[in-house]
């Protein structure tokens, strides 16, 4: 039983990392220009907000679909 629990924890971690890879791929293209000696403050903010706005977009669409179905 503990083995199963540990396995589930690992699967959750794997899904999280898979999402991080997908977000980094997409937000890198949206936010980072020519790579410099460190991330510019603007680039870092853009990366953080890119994740949040993507999830907002997804939530907005799910909620609106529910609403359209209910009508």
């Amino acid at each position: 039983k503990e083995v199963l629990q540990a396995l589930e924890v690992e699967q959750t971690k794997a899904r999280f990392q898979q999402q991080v890879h997908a977000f980094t791929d997409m937000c890198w293209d949206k936010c980072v220009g020519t790579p410099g000696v460190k991330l510019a403050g603007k680039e870092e903010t853009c990366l953080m907000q890119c994740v949040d706005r993507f999830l907002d977009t997804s939530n907005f669409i799910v909620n609106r679909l529910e609403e359209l179905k209910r009508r």
Partner: protein
Amino acid sequence: EVRMQLAQANAQELLSKMTEKAFAKCITKPGAALDGSEKSCIAKTMDRYMDAWNVVSRSYMARLQRDQHAAHSH
């Protein structure tokens, strides 16, 4: 239940494509929150994407039927 899984997979795929297209078109510079014009753009993208899905679906179905008809008549 096969049918339900299918319908779910289909809805999931549509959702993921719409999110991808709306985010690419509407959120050029991610800000501190979705603003009104971004939300309106997302809503329009959703509606047009679903229209496009229907147009493509009808068009593809018509093509398959034309091809099948052509095959039988030979």
